[in-house]
Structures are given as structure tokens and as C-alpha cells.
């Protein structure tokens, strides 16, 4: 099973996403932003970082890269796509997911381990969790305030498309404590926290968190079941 991880010139957590895919048992494939081929991968991760510097608006420029045109097409066709942090921003900019991510309400970059509630397990990336499971995943972003209009927020909640919610506070002022959402079909998921940084006890959240690994094993077992 091959998980592709896109590298934009300013991607930073791409190596971590590949490591997470490997630890989950996949073959990790590096996808280059300027190459429109997806190289027959079975799923795609858009990793964290600052795609093209992201000085204007996070994800704004990345969405126009050659690889993204293929990702957008493939996602519409059902390919599992996970956007982490900057990847989430790119997915919103590309309108694969609704809403937008704005500068944190407190205006600081914040890196802290955060407790999340898994609210939707009917996605390609979260089926390995149990409904309402509480997990600890690092948050690290400067522009992670999830924002959408009330109608969209109501719709997301009504359709069970809020995948993760922040517990015990809100690290960035996201509306309704939303940390991650999915598309209608459930193959596309975006979240601000970083599951790829919670895959090894040694380097994960303080005290040995590996709660992020299930995102990567979920997609593999779903793909395996399909194959």
C-alpha cells in the first residue's frame, strides 16, 4: 500500500508524515509539487509547513501547484486525502473542504499537546478510533482558527462532518472548537493538530503519546478491505 506525501518547497513536516506512514506499515512515496503525477499512490497526505512561504495567506499559492490539480481530481474521485495543518489550509483554499483557517485569536504561534475528541469515525482516516475517543495530539500553528459561516457550521454538525474537536479549551479560537472536518464522502479529512508527531513514544507528546498513528493505520486497513 502506498501513501504519497506531497512536498511543496516550504513543506516542513513532510518527512514526519512519511515516517508516520512507514510506521503504520505503508510504503511512503514523496510527491513533488511541480509534478502532476500521483505515481499510483493509494492515498495522499498534504503535510504541515508553509507551502510556498505562506506569507500572503496559508495555502493560497499551493492550491495552484500542478500536483494539487491532480490531488483535487483524485479526491473528487474518492482517493483518501489527509490535510494536516498547512495541508488542511490547502484543502480549504482548494474548496475540497468548506471554511477557512485564520490567524489565531490570541495572535501567537502556539505549540502545545492538546486533548481532542474524535467525533466521526466514518472517514477513511479515522475508522480506527472509537466514537468519542479522547486522544492527545500536538497543536502547532499560527493560523489555525477554523472559521465558516453559521450555515456551514450547522451543516457540518448536522451531517456529522466534524471529525475532531478540541477539549479543555481552544488553542486558537476555532469556531465551535472545531479541530478537523471531513468532506461529504469521508475520503477527505483536514485537521490542524499534527497526528504525525504522535506516532512514537520517544518523540510524541510528553508522556509517550502515539495517539496519531491510528490515522495512518485506519487508511491502510480501509484500503486493504477494499482491495
Amino acid at each position, binding site marked *: 500500500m502506498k501513501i504519497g506525501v506531497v512536498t511543496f*518547497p516550504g513543506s516542513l*513536516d513532510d518527512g514526519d508524515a512519511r515516517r508516520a506512514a512507514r510506521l503504520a506499515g505503508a510504503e511512503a512515496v514523496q510527491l513533488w509539487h511541480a509534478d502532476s503525477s500521483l505515481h499510483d499512490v493509494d492515498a495522499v497526505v498534504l503535510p504541515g509547513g508553509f507551502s510556498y512561504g505562506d506569507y500572503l495567506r496559508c495555502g493560497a499559492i499551493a492550491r495552484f501547484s500542478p500536483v494539487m490539480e491532480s490531488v483535487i481530481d483524485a479526491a473528487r474521485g474518492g482517493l483518501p486525502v489527509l490535510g494536516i495543518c498547512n495541508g488542511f489550509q490547502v484543502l480549504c483554499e482548494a474548496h475540497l473542504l468548506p471554511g477557512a483557517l485564520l490567524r489565531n485569536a490570541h495572535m501567537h504561534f502556539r505549540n502545545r499537546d492538546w486533548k481532542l475528541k474524535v467525533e466521526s469515525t466514518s472517514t477513511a482516516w479515522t475508522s480506527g478510533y472509537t466514537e468519542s475517543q479522547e486522544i492527545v495530539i500536538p497543536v502547532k500553528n*499560527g493560523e489555525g482558527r477554523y472559521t465558516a459561516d453559521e450555515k456551514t457550521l450547522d451543516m457540518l454538525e448536522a451531517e456529522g462532518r466534524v471529525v475532531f474537536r478540541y477539549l479543555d479549551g481552544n488553542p486558537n479560537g476555532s469556531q465551535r472548537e472545531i479541530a478537523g472536518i471531513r468532506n461529504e464522502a469521508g475520503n477527505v479529512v483536514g485537521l490542524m493538530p499534527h497526528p504525525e508527531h504522535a506516532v512514537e513514544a520517544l518523540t510524541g507528546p510528553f508522556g509517550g503519546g502515539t495517539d496519531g498513528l491510528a490515522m495512518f493505520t485506519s487508511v491502510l486497513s480501509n484500503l486493504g478491505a477494499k482491495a
Partner: protein
Amino acid sequence: MTTIDTVELAEKNPDEEQPYAELGLQADEYERIKEILGRRPTQSELAMYSIMWSEHCSYKSSKVHLRQFGEKAPKSDRMLAGIGENAGVVRVSDTLAVTFKVESHNHPSFVEPYQGAATGVGGIVRDILAMGARPIAVMDQLRFGAVDHPDTTRVVNGVVQGVGGYGNCLGLPNIGGETVFDPCYQGNPLVNALSVGVLPVDRLQNKAAAGVGNVVILMGAKTGRDGIGGVSVLASATFEEGSEDSRPAVQVGDPFTEKLLIESCLELYDAGLVVGIQDLGGAGLTCALSETSSAAGLGMRAYLERVPLREPSMLPHEILASESQERMLLIVSPENVEAVLAVCEKWGVLGTAIGEVTEGERLVISWNEHVVVDCPPGSLADDGPVYARPLREPADLILLQADRAETLPRPSDLRATLLTLVASPNLCDKGWITEQYDRYVLGNTVLAQPEDAGLVRLDEESNLGIAIATDGNGRYTRLNPYEGARASLAEAYRNVAVTGAEPIAVSDCLNFGSPEDPAVMWQFAEAVRGLADGCQELGIPVTGGNVSFYNQTGTVAINPTPVVAVLGIHEDVTTRTPMGFAEAGHTIALLGETREELSGSEWAWVEHGHLGGQPPKIDLGHEKKLADVLRAADLVSAHDLSDGGLAQALTESVLRRGIGATVTLTGDAFVALFSESAGRVLVTVKDVDALRAAAGDIPVTVLGTTGGDKLTVEGQFEIPLTELAEAHQGTLGKLYG
């Protein structure tokens, strides 16, 4: 139309006066330049000499002292590159080497805190990159003025956001640092930054522009009128112009471009396409051109009109002096130029051939057919002035040392004292700062803030890793520069050792006032001597560092502040020892001896605003043995004691995982809690007999046991962890929100 001053013109009117004094050159220095050239320098040459012979580039006041680092350095076959290179390189395994260095960006960070700090990080990362290494982490050592001074908010917020903004955007985890507040830094904050990188041993790069006919390529950002240090001095010389747009501009960092520069350089190294490489730092092209050619003992021909400019109106001397960030200079053999430019293109980085390596030791630089520089590169890079400046012990030192803190009135309420101290600016939790930094990126951070040292895994197979800690104590160094410097070394060494790593190398950043003040120069000489002696005693070499002079407001210098960085090897990071109490029921013990040492302490400062006496005694033989014990013993946790003493170490250890403790103190409880005696570590173990056996002649004092939700000092007080946490963690957020 400005006339360009050329070599031809300089030969025609060899005696025309030049504004050398405005550029910071002394009359005799100017005479020497004329002697070297056999004529007056051109405007561009004058700019280059003034930059290269400045304190910052030539180390003219510090050189005679820094020599000791080499002379006293223990022989080590680990050292692959040492002082004089962009950064020292030490071998950590058969195949891997590590390079690290700490550098200052103090003055720019006061003028424009965000950009000053950001470009400080960018600059040190390029030094590491230039050695052939992939940068893998950064650290920041910060000194601010009084916490409540109206200007401190501006500086703190700007600096912290600048360090974070640049480092986070580069994808380098921040694994530690220091934050100190003291009024002596009010008009002159210190912003030091450290970077560490890793390289395969055979990828080591150097800066020599070897190989006649090789091509000189400038890579990275366009060149603009950026610059504070060298260029601002230059600009103040006006050259009959003084127009608005010839004024120097603040350097603005572009971390995205730096990220591209890193990736493209690494790709070039791996493809074996680079003969020589040098980063462009404070002295820009001037430094890069002269150092690369001088290092090779060859000449160089450079064409300034080829340099991509942000502002087309720039003149040759401005191009040479520009401090624009995110640039590297490469030496490439002609047949590889195309391949190099293709890699640049792939990453979207500008790459431009601007010259070539030539026979003979002349650096010849032209601008649109005009030759503006023709000089021996070694005269710029290596033959700058060297001064043995006068030294004099500060007049007030004897009185200062006589005014001991041990005689100050002591508190009756130790509970209140502890709560006040752990909430004080220098001892409080620094989470408000460190949460603004990415600690996770690259996925190899094993330990970071608030642990004693940063610990990074280098290899996922073998679990080999490196630990780094930095320390500097301006108050101790003010009281006794020799001992103060050794105290900082001892502390950094111990902080590395508590993780279970073996300390192997040292870097430093020496922040002092004006070298022209004999009292400052004496402090500097003493501190260097202390550090060099200390390294000799510990058997670890200084591999590189940085000197920052002129840190003062008016005639008042900062406390002398040598920041010492120690690097250690960790053979198996999965066995690292963290600082926090892990679970209930473990035995708490203190390694080392507590003496009544309160002078220079946080207690004296916070409770009495007092600075006087002698700093704690340093015994490096003991530190060495202690480090061996820390590696050999089976420890659940280990946390070194430093500022704030045992009270602080206990507080940090219980709060790390919310595991309380009950301890019993022997002797004077106040001294036991707040003395800052060196050479001590707070540990927890499951088996105290095994600890005693492992400890040899290092004193072991059992203090109590872990557990509960309070910090209890028997017979004295108890503090619920919630109350302790509130006191310790609230301070900085409340001040700077």
C-alpha cells in the same frame, strides 16, 4: 551622476583624503591600507577594509585572548574542523559528524526586535549549512531589561516572535535556550542563537576558493541596501550624497528563501558539485569574496554588475557591503556550473555566476568595466590589526566582592519565599515563550524545553543522539569573571550530563561591553581564561564561537555575559533521563554538596535587589565525576540545580508530570532550599543502594519520596501542586500576553 571611484582614479590621485575615520578606521590602520595597496584605497576598497578590519570581522581586540582556546584545547580526534571555520565540526560516529555554533545578533534586535532576532536565527543556520550539514535544531539565548520597563514588552514580543517566526518557518525544532531579565540589558538586549547540524563525515565542506578557473556563484536572495553594522557606519560617511535612498535599511528575513537555500545546497553537496562554499553574513560579499580566496591562497575576479540587485541604483561599494540575508557564495568547477544552476532552478533559487578563481593572490573586482578593487585578499581576511588592549580590574570590584549576600537578612516564611521566587521573572516557567516555537518538526526531538538539555535523535536505527545545553550567568561573571565563566561551563556541562549524554565539545558567545574600556577588557580576558582553563580541565575543546563587544548604553556596560554551549553524545536516546518525577514511591536524592552560597543568587536579587560577594565555588573535577555517575547510575529522573537552588529544582520536578513529593531537609532549611552551590543534581531512583554504589565518592543525600499532589517540606510547609503551578506558570503570560 555619481562618479565611480576606480583603481585607475586612485592611482591618479594617490593622496586624496578618504573618510576613513567615519568608517571606524584608525589613522594608523588607514596608513597600513595605503602601504598594502601602494596608493590610497578606492571607495570600494575602503569599504571592504573598514568592514573586514572592524571588531566584528577581525576580532582585533579578542584575538590575543581567544588563542588560549586552541592552545589549551585537549587533543581530540573527534575534531574535523575547529576555530576559524564557519562552525566547528565534531565526529560523533564512524560516519556522522555534528556542527554547532552560537552567535549574537544583539544590536539589530534592539533597533527592530522581530527582524533582528529572525535574521539572527537565519544567519547562524547558514553557518551550519556552509559546513555541509543539514541544520537540525536551533536554540535561543535571550537577555532582556527589567520585566516591567515600558520598552521591554516591545523587545520581548518582537524577539520571541522573530525567533519563532524564522525558526518555525524553516522547519527547525527549537530545543532550548535561556531567558533572563536584568536592568543592565535595558538598552542593549542580548539575542544569541544557536544552530546545530548533522552531516555524513565525507560531506564536510570548506570555504576555500580552490582551483584556478573555477566559477564563483552567488546563490539566493537579491542584494539590496540592507544592513546595520558595517553598512550603517559606511552610510554615515555620506560620500557627498546623503540622499534618502542611500541610507542603510534594516535587514528583513525571508525564511522561505532560506529553506530553499538549505534544500538546494544539500542537494548540491550530495551531488558532489561544490568545491567551496561560504555563507554571506554580516559582512556580505566583502567577507565571502575575500575569505574564500584568501583561504585558498589564490586570487579572484568578480563582476559586480552581474549581482542581481533589488535596487538597480546601488553603487559598487554598496553591493560589496550589503548585508542582505539568505545568500551563499559557491565555488564550482566550470563543467558543473550548468548542473548547479539546474538545482537552483529546481528549488526556485537565484543562482548567478559572478566571477572566477584566478592565479596569483589578487582580488580584482569590477563594475561595468571599471576596476574598483584590486588588493591581496589575505590583507582583508587575515592581516587585520591585532590589539593587546589595556586591562584593568574594575575599580569597584573589591568592594562588590566584599558585600556578601550571605550576610543579608533571611526570611522567616520559607513557603512565601519559595512562591515568590518560582514566580520571579528569571525562575518562572518559560512556557509562554517556548510554546511559540515548534519543538516537534523533523520528528527527532526527544527532550526539549523545559528539560535541562535539548536531546535530538540522529539515527532511527542506532538511536544515536546529541544533547545540547547553553548557560550564561551575567551576575556571577560580574562578581568574578574567571569563576563566572567556569560556572556557566559547569552548568551547561551538567545539563548535558543529566540526560545521560557524554559532553564532548563547547561553543560560546561572549557578550561584553566596549573593549576600549580597560575594565571591560579585563572582564573579557578573565572570562576567556576561565573558560579555556575549564575546558582543559574537563577535557573538551572549544570548537568555535562568537564575540560581541560594545554591548552598553552610554558608558555603562552590560554584566559580562559569556554564553556557553556544551554538546554531548547520547549513545542511545531511548534510555535518556528526563527531569520530572515519574511516579509515586521513588526515592528522591541529592547528588553533590550544599554549601552556604547565596552571593549572586536569585534569592539575593529578587528579595533584596542585591548583587555582591563571590559566586559559588566551581570544582570541575567533581563535575566530571558527577557526569560519569549520571551516565552509569540507573536513574528515573535527574534535574540539575542551578539558579534558585533546590527549591527551584523541586518545583520544576514535581510540576513536570504533576507528581508531588515529601522531603526532609537537614541543617539550615533556608540554605538547603536557596543556596546555589554548583555540582548538584536532584535525582529519583527505585533503588537507593544501587545509587550509592554507583555514586562512588559523590555525596548522596536522601531527601524523601515522590507522590501525592503537594510539595511537602517536613517541618516547614506544604504547597498544593495547583498553587505551585499557578505561581510558577502565570508570570510571563500576564506581563506580555
